[in-house]
């Protein structure tokens, strides 16, 4: 069956499409480049300031917009970059361009430091931490007079010709802004961009897809800190003189608003917002005392009215559901092409032995033995509270058992975190589908291959051809997976426009892309109509014939008895019965357990 015959590779690749996509950016660039010919020095300096802010906000966009961390005190990093550059130039006579680089590095270092609390602290706590950070940076700048000049401050770095004139400096700032945009875009459309959205919108599921949440967050903070440091050095040069009170809380809020109002996870929106917000104080000069109030009001309005930003608002108006038709039947023959791994060794079974786990005083699992053999479907059923989902969570690595072992083949998985287990080839779905609503269906499916990407973060930021090739290969694989589950026709739709049942199949497609050895399914048939359950059954059956071991938790006992090779019944954390479907179905104890007699 020619599974791909009626599905096109998404349009990005063709040259004409590429040209039309880049046209707006090229036009903006041309306009910015020609600006000095049209306006005087004063407005050029304002434009330079907007470029400098954008360098910082591009980085902040990754943290706030993509990763969803409430880093409100980012002005502290601007201050660090500014003071690093100023101190190096003024006190140590370092050349300005070198100081620029060092400022970037110090920003990266402190960005990393801010990233550390984000691992443990959430939301309000983390926001408060970043605010505290910004405050103490200013306090240290104020108090450590011998280094920073205290309240009097320091002169900023002066760049060598041709950047020492307002025109030259403007072009320097513009160049940095273009560079920041370039790397931001490369990250945003890459594997890492998808991973960050996963961290933001579904962090529990992200780990199960193989996203190394900790590492990714820290790398992002470091990178963004670097951009902020660079911005700080440029800022110090532009102001020609810096004092601690230049780095106000207002600026932090302004940066934040630019990301929010432009739309989290977008690029053009925050860019436009940055330009506008930089211009506002100039245009509304008489009201400068009220500027903080205005920023607060603006933030409040954005949060209440447009929490997704302008871009999402526009999105929802103009982007309708691309296809009204319900899910088409899956093309199971396409599965083989998705999950085949040329270098794969023999598949391993999952062996659960004597696993026990108690929460508080409740024994959720009480000595469970179970084997999932490659190429078989193992059904797991049991009354409510019997421990089925808990067992699944123990196998995938969210909980460590108090007792017992879990092996994949010969390897004991004790201590392995969730993302490591998914890299070993254990894929899972969730009771409630955890898909990233803001991303397309195709992007969601591609997330399954997160750990297959080899390009590192810096290389991805540079946008090398190798990264594009990898991305393209994964894109094809994901498309084939969507074809297999019957969702290819809505590959470009936002995932939150899918019906619940379609989201379930999307989760399965994502698992296919992972090329798993073992597939753990948590109630995949819940909410499915009869024909959809048939589709599900044929997908699972085909997967098992291709050598994947499937553990199927279900309340649709019909489905379980129909397709499973082996069935285990759990009750109150213990194995009540285990055997072929026929044996289990007629087991008196099982009947009693279900009917509560």
């Amino acid at each position, binding site marked *: 069956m020619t599974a791909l015959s009626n599905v096109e590779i998404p349009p990005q690749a063709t040259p004409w499409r590429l040209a039309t996509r880049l046209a707006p950016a090229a036009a903006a660039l041309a306009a910015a480049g020609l600006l000095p010919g049209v306006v005087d020095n004063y407005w050029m300096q304002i434009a330079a300031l907007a470029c400098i802010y954008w360098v910082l906000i591009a980085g902040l966009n990754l943290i706030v917009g993509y990763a969803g961390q409430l880093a409100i005190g980012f002005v502290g990093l601007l201050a660090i970059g500014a003071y690093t550059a100023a101190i190096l130039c003024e006190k140590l006579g370092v050349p300005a361009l070198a100081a620029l680089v060092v400022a970037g590095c110090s920003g990266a270092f402190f960005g990393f430091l801010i990233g550390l609390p984000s691992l443990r602290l959430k939301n309000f706590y983390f926001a408060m931490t970043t605010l505290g950070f910004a405050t103490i940076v200013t306090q240290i700048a104020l108090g450590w007079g011998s280094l920073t000049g205290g309240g009097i401050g320091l002169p900023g770095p002066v760049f060598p010709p041709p950047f020492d004139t307002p025109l030259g400096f403007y072009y320097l700032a513009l160049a940095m802004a273009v560079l920041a945009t370039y790397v931001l875009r490369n990250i945003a459309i890459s594997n890492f961009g998808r991973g960050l959205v996963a961290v933001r919108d579904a962090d529990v599921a992200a780990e199960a897809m193989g996203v190394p949440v900790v590492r990714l967050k820290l790398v992002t903070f470091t990178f963004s800190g670097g951009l902020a440091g660079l911005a700080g050095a440029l800022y110090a040069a532009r102001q020609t003189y810096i004092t601690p009170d230049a780095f106000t809380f207002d600026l932090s809020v302004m940066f934040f608003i630019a990301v929010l109002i432009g739309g989290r996870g977008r690029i053009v929106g925050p860019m436009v917002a940055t330009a506008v917000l930089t211009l506002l104080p100039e245009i509304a000069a008489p009201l400068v005392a009220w500027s903080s109030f205005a920023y607060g009001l603006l933030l409040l309005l954005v949060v209440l009215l447009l929490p997704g930003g302008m871009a999402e608002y526009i999105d929802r108006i103009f982007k309708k559901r691309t296809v009204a038709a319900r899910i088409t039947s899956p093309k199971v023959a396409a599965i083989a092409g998705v999950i085949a791994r040329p270098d794969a060794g023999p598949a391993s079974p999952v062996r659960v032995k004597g696993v026990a786990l108690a929460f508080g005083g409740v024994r959720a699992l009480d000595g469970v033995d179970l084997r999932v053999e490659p190429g078989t479907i193992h059904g797991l059923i049991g*009354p*409510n*509270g019997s421990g089925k989902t808990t067992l699944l969570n123990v196998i995938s690595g969210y909980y460590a058992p108090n007792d017992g072992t879990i092996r994949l083949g010969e390897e004991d998985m004790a201590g392995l975190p969730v993302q490591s287990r998914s890299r070993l080839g254990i894929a899972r779905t969730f009771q*409630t589908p955890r898909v990233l609503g803001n991303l397309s269906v195709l992007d969601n499916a591609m997330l399954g291959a997160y750990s297959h990407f080899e390009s590192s973060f810096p290389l991805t930021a540079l946008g090398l051809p190798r990264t594009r090739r990898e991305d393209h290969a994964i894109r094809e694989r994901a498309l084939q997976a969507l074809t297999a589950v019957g969702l290819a026709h809505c590959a470009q739709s936002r995932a939150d426009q*899918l*019906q*619940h049942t379609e*989201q379930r199949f999307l989760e399965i497609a994502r698992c296919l892309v992972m090329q798993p050895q073992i597939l753990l399914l948590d*109630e995949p048939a*819940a*909410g499915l109509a*009869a*024909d959809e*359950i*048939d589709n599900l*059954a044929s997908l699972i059956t085909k997967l098992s014939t291709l050598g994947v071991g499937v553990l199927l938790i279900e*309340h*649709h*006992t*019909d*489905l379980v*008895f*129909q397709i499973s090779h082996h069935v285990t019944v759990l009750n109150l954390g213990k194995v009540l019965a285990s055997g072929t*479907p*026929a044996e289990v*179905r*007629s087991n008196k104890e*099982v*009947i009693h357990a*279900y*009917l*509560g*007699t």
Partner: protein
Amino acid sequence: MPTSVPEANRPLLAVSQLATGYGPLRVIESLDMSIESGEIVALVGPNGAGKSTLVKAISSLIAKSSGTVTFDGGDVTGLSPRECGKRGLVHVLEGHRVFAPLTVEENLLLAAFDVPAAQRMERVEEAYSFFPDIARKRHDKAGALSGGQQQMLAVGQGIVRRPKLLILDEPSAGLAPVLIDRVLEVVKSLRAKGAAILLIEQAVEKALSVADRVYVMVHGKLVLDTDARSASAHGVLEAAYLGSTTTHQATSS
């Protein structure tokens, strides 16, 4: 709809074409159900069937996407859970969710939140009369009670609200058999006082022993509505929970 129905013939609770779910997950699509005054109705079915979802929609704890709920002659479809409670439609959640840091008596007093202060203790004493074991522990913190006692306290909270219809969601979960019997005795006493009870139960045989009627719910639909003592119930139940005993190609359920 008939324009004039004699009061005596009108059901206490009438659910018509109810549809509800959680976000994009539609659990129930167009369900009808009715309960008469003074009857005990058991609602049974496999896990994931939607029983808890159904009763949460009836008592307005979750939103209904369409359909109507009529209670005691009035339309309660759009009312808040509080409003429903004031009219006598009382819902005791599953999992004996009492407030652990508060004492037994405080838990019961809270159930009488809208009752004028002077009459609150009277209501609380009513609950104690049904559950003397709990009365003995009235000043103990609810968190110190055993699971079974907490469940009795939760039912007591329902009683304090003087329900016309009391919805009990799996009151026997985790209880020893003797306590299950105790709860069922209370259910019968409530019926004797004129209340109707909708009883979601996992202990199917016990539920059938006190109920007048039984609904069987599978995958969001009511597949059976019958007299609780009818002989066919057991066979249907087994099929509902475990599927039919003959293996077959996938068909519509």
